[in-house]
């Protein structure tokens, strides 16, 4: 489990540094793969047989395969803007993430002192905050979607650790929500591209009354 946590932290840190759309989505897929493995581990700790595999199987299909596939198709459409710029330096994102890592360990030590799952809980809070940070610091709509999914991964991981396996119905609902959110965001993004010829969300300022 500790190795998984270290791997996850590493992937998320890398995520903050990637500015290329496709690589960022591959990274997201990798991130979800780690979550799926963590899910499998937790599943075998608390249940047996097929039920233990279902959540991890679903994470695998939806987050590792489906969502990156949809997003990659969208990126394929956006051929005319290969240049990826952000007005905030990537170093700031990474530095902020480092701060968040400290902060999440402090919070976990204060709220749940001497818990067994200290590392993984802190990591999940770190992932949530970093995802949020990605949304705030990136201008491109697709990068913001990546941030949203990262945040969602963090929340899912936190839920998994705190409850030691959610009921199946709730898991289904969560996955459906994420899938729908991504579909809607993809539609919105392609509309944004059609209307403004760019996926830079700064153009939305024009909508202010």
């Amino acid at each position, binding site marked *: 489990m500790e190795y998984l946590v270290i791997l996850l932290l590493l992937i998320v840190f890398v995520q903050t540094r990637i500015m290329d759309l496709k690589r960022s989505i591959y990274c997201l897929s990798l991130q979800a793969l780690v979550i799926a493995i963590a899910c499998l581990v937790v599943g075998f700790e608390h249940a047996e047989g097929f039920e233990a595999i279902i959540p991890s199987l679903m994470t695998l299909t939806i987050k590792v395969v489906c969502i990156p596939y949809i997003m990659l198709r969208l990126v394929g459409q956006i051929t005319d803007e290969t240049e990826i710029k952000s007005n905030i330096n990537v170093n700031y994102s990474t530095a902020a993430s480092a701060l968040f890592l400290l*902060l999440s360990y402090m*919070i976990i030590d204060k709220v749940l002192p001497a818990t067994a799952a200290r590392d993984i809980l802190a990591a999940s809070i770190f992932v949530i*905050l970093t995802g949020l*940070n990605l949304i*705030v610091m990136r201008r491109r709509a697709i990068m913001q979607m990546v941030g949203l999914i990262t945040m969602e991964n963090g929340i899912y991981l936190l839920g998994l650790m705190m409850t030691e396996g959610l009921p199946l119905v709730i898991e289904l609902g969560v996955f459906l929500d994420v899938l729908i959110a991504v579909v809607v965001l993809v539609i919105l993004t392609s509309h944004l591209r059609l209307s403004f010829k760019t996926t830079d969300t700064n153009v*939305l*300022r024009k*909508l202010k009354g």
Partner: protein
Amino acid sequence: MNLLLLALIIYCVGAITMLLPKKIELMAHYIAQACAIVASGLVLYKAAFYLLMPSEELLLDTGWGVYTLQADSWSAAFLCLTGLAGIVISIYAIDYAKAFLGKRLRILGGLWNVFLLSMVGVLLAGDAFTFLLTWELMAVSSFLLVNHESEKKETWSAAFQYLVMTHLGTAAIMIGFFIIASGADSLTFADLARSKISPVMQNIAFVAAFMGFALKAGLVPLHVWLPNAHPAAPTHVSALMSGVMLKIAVYGFGRFVFQFFNGFVEWQGILVLVIGLISAFLSVLYAIMEKDMKRILAYSSVENMGIIFSAIGTGMILMSIGYGRLAMVAFTGALVHSFNHSIMKALMFMASGAVMHATGSKNIEKMGGLIKYMPWTACFTLIGSMALAALPLTNGFVGEWLTLQGFATLATRADGHLLRLLAAAAFLLFGLTGALALGCFVRLYGTAFLGKSRSNIVEKAHEMPFFMLLGMGIETVLVVVLGFIPGPLVETLQGVISGGRFNTTMADNFGIIWGGTGSYAIFSPILLGSSLIVIFLVIYLAYKIGGSFVYQDVTWNCGTYPTERQQYTATGFSKPLRRAFSFLLKPKREAIYLRKENAYFGKQVQYKLAVPDQFTERLYAPFQKHLVMTASVLRKIQQGSVRLYIGYAMVALIIVLVWGAM
């Protein structure tokens, strides 16, 4: 099935007519008004029957889920006046609203039913939740009715102002209810009456509730919406708003004061009395300055609500200083005046609608001599004006007489000098108010109906169709009958106040007697009327026998024939008052001298006069300015960037996490 519930269903049916197809618009209108008339008739019948045959049971006690419907005799009194006004104004609306043919007439008819339904609903509500729900329905439906001619900019802005103000009022009432409910088991009125809250909280609840109801009743300084909203609405709507909706505020205030607060507190009574007196005096002063017929009536409504509230305040003071039996006269006065005012104000609004219908204008400066073109309307307006000016022999006098007796009782019974002084001041202000009201309606009637016509819009004036005359006629008859024979009404409403506990009645068939001041005061319209007839007969006979001569000629005017431009204008008529009260009114006068081509002959003068509402100018406008300034400062955080907003959320999240961890 209970007839009141049946009435509610019929109102709903009337409301549904707004969904009928546009082809049968006129039919939908007839159905809607018929529903309103039948349902209001049921309400009136049931409530009047309950008041005349008092019984131990409640008029209505039913419920559905969390919604409770209950009606006692206090509700029944107001149900009576709602039903009566509902019938008469709906009859009037049959013909009047035809002017809106093709201009969303179906919506007008449907909302008319919704409005009536909501007002009956407020009166029937048996718990705070139902009360607030129906109260809000009333606010929204009346807003939509005021906004009916939304193409006009002034209508739209008046309606919007009304919506904002009325929601502030609802918020205040909600605060009142919730503070009381914090010490009660449930939200039903019976439980709220047993609520245990500390005196401090009770005072806060009282102030909140008083503010909310005063706003709906249009008391100064919360009246600013009223003179704008009433002229903007279609006339039958303003008649219903002024005649009934303002009384619903009295009902709600009475519900709080009589049922929810245990015991009466002296300063609360003084507050209500003083606010009521100031409202009555200031608004009649503004009424006499206005040229718009419906604005005059709107200000007059504020005046009358002031009178009603000052009567309630007097009663509250009398209760708090231990003269519970004597407080009856003031409370009865408030109730009687509410009832009578709903009749006469509906009549006067209907008459103003008739004049607007005939001339197409609300400005009385353009009228004059209407009596020749519309004699019936003129007759009804005269009687309505007399009632609103509170002349004896009309019903407008009865409630004011009782209120004055309340003041007199307070003045003789109060122990402290300050209370006596207050009662004396109340007397003075009340007298001044009455005199100004008389002047105001002499001015209104004289300018609009008498003299020579001031513009050609009068010449195309015509008498009104049958149903409009019928509506006004019924109210006129009621004004006269209730003015001549006030006894039964006063006796019935006194029963409502005393709950049948006191056996002494103030009224008999000849008039009203009140002995609370130590000596007996008697008001007997029949005696007064017959003595007036005798006096007139004597004078008439003296002239006849004395052989006086009548010789008709043109008015002498320095050798020239008088033209219509030489008669008193409405503005001129009120000039002395404008000067005398200039320290209050602060009129804005502006004279611009425009020179003609010839420097030596005749200068052209442009003269502008405006009497702006000082409360709007001094209180609301600065407040609004500061609000807008604050908002524009706050608008800096609204940058239109989604990322920034998510950034706010992130900062908040981190702060919450850290704070939670601390």
